[in-house]
């Protein structure tokens, strides 16, 4: 018989792509992404007993991942500011170790320039989530989702063209 932890790890293993993508969207540097990835795992584990309150596993993972990442942004920004005051962030470190195709790299760079709310909405849109699912994860109305997606898409296209 599977233990609760085994069950959790199996779900996590199947859905870990979400954690990677959310971390990529919110954090440019690899160490920050790895810390965030680990923090999301921990927060998912903590809220695992409440999983039954969610309609789908996916939306639960997206909600916890996005909320965790946003709560960490300020912390990481503070540490970065303290450690690297004289230097500008190294662009070559943005997408490290993974040799991404140029279009994906361009798209990710454009997403980095969106604000935190638009980042999460755009991520869910790119993941082909329905308006209902996005509304559930973000907590806004379906019509609001539509308006925000259109606006974020325009911003994204402008960022890509630059």
């Amino acid at each position, binding site marked *: 018989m599977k233990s609760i*932890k085994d069950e959790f*790890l*199996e779900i*996590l*293993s199947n859905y*870990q*792509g979400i954690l*990677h*993508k959310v971390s*990529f969207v919110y954090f440019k540097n690899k160490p920050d992404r790895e810390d965030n*990835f*680990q*923090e999301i*795992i*921990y*927060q998912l*584990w*903590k*809220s695992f007993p*409440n999983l039954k*309150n*969610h309609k789908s596993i996916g939306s*639960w993972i997206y*909600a*916890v991942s*996005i*909320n*965790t990442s*946003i*709560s960490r*942004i*300020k912390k990481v920004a*503070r540490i970065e500011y303290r450690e690297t005051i004289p230097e500008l962030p190294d662009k070559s470190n943005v997408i490290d170790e*993974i040799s*991404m*195709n140029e*279009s*994906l790299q361009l*798209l990710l760079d454009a997403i980095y320039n969106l*604000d*935190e*709310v638009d980042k*999460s909405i755009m991520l869910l*849109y*790119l*993941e*082909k989530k329905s308006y209902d699912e996005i509304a*559930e*994860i*973000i*907590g*806004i109305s379906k019509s*609001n989702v539509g*308006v*925000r997606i259109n606006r974020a*898409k325009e911003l*994204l*296209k402008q960022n*890509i063209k630059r």
Partner: protein
Amino acid sequence: MENNELQKIWKTFDTEINQKTIDELNLLLTSKTKQTINKFLVILSISILISVGLLIFLAITSLNRQNDLIYLINNATLGIVTIISLLSGLMSWYKIQNNKYNQPLKNWLELRINLLSKWLTGKFSKLYLFLIPLLYVLTVLSIHVYFENKSFIDVLNTEESIIGLIVGAPVGLFVSYFGARKIRKYQLNNLEFLKDLHGRLCNVR
């Protein structure tokens, strides 16, 4: 660039991700859990050790100075303030740490904003301005009076003690306020950031 073209590009992300094995995920979870528990234990142990140490000192010195009523009042006040500060401090810290991430972004932001607002701008948010000097002066007096081997009133009538208190208090208070202000400033920045995000989420322009 067409809309579905963006989604098509994004889809290529799946092939770029280095999937972690179940063992690796388990290791990450275990180490993070240990780290969090250790951090909690360190903070808890330090707070309890300092407070309990102070309470033991207050109890022993009070027993040795049973005839000095003012000294006993000083120690009793300090003991009560210490216990209340320890409990409320640990409770606030637990609430702040115990984030409920398992909900929609907007609800999570509202919960977090309410919690931080209560803590930083609520009824008791400025209590530290009163508590820090009170705790500091009472502690200094308790220690000083005890080791001077004089009664509370006699010590307060000594010129050196008064000069020591006048000179020493501002230094100690400055250090305490500096620490408290730094934490408060960081949390206020955090609150503003969350309010800004919430505002952007609610306003559709």
